[in-house]
């Protein structure tokens, strides 16, 4: 697991049923691309978050495959439909097998 990985998500506290809302997510992660070399000329191995998903009450909103061209501290902004009150679940999958999770409730 990369050090001190910290997710941040922005979800409105409430919405009306069927409303489309905008979600924003940010997570601290170096996203080491595998293209850089260290001071002795050795390639620094790739270590990135390779997938991000957002689900609401078990149904998928977005599923993103991420490549090394995503910037350090990955940011995503996207829209979701809120059919009822419930919980958003955000999941980031690291190359090293670590999984970072965050959830946010929303009322209708």
């Amino acid at each position: 697991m990369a050090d001190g990985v910290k997710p941040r998500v922005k979800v409105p506290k409430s919405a009306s049923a069927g409303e489309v809302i905008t979600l924003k997510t940010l997570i601290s992660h170096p996203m080491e691309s595998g293209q850089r070399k260290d001071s002795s000329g050795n390639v620094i191995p790739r270590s990135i978050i390779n997938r991000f998903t957002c689900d609401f009450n078990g149904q998928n909103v977005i599923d993103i495959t991420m490549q090394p061209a995503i910037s350090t501290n990955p940011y995503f902004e996207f829209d979701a439909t809120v059919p009822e009150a419930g919980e958003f679940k955000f999941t980031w999958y690291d190359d090293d097998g670590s999984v970072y999770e965050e959830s946010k409730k929303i009322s209708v």
Partner: protein
Amino acid sequence: MDFTRRETLALGAGAALMTVLPFRVNAAADDAINEFTGGAAVADGGVDLDAPEIAENGNTVPIGVSAEGATAILLLAAGNPTPGVATYNFGPLAGSTAASTRIRLAGTQDVIAIAKLADGSFARASKTVKVTIGGCGG
């Protein structure tokens, strides 16, 4: 300022090299596109790609993309060492078929978005982003 014949030739060779290079890097991007589309034809238009004309730093370039009726969108940076950036797969609760992120660009190049539409067809958009290299490092 006058250039000698030799200098003009040197400049011409440089310019020729610059026009040849993109073909090489685009091959990798074409492979990525073919993998996504399965070789199907890709129509121009129908995809909205929001990218800055000039990025102050190639490390963090904001890119937004949307395509009406898309089930998935592939985002590529044709001039990067590996062209892949991200693939957005929209689920049943997606509120729109749009998403924004921040990406790395190794230099001035084309950013390409390919949308897979619900009817199985594909559409594309591309935009050139100039990446400036500042005078002040570190």
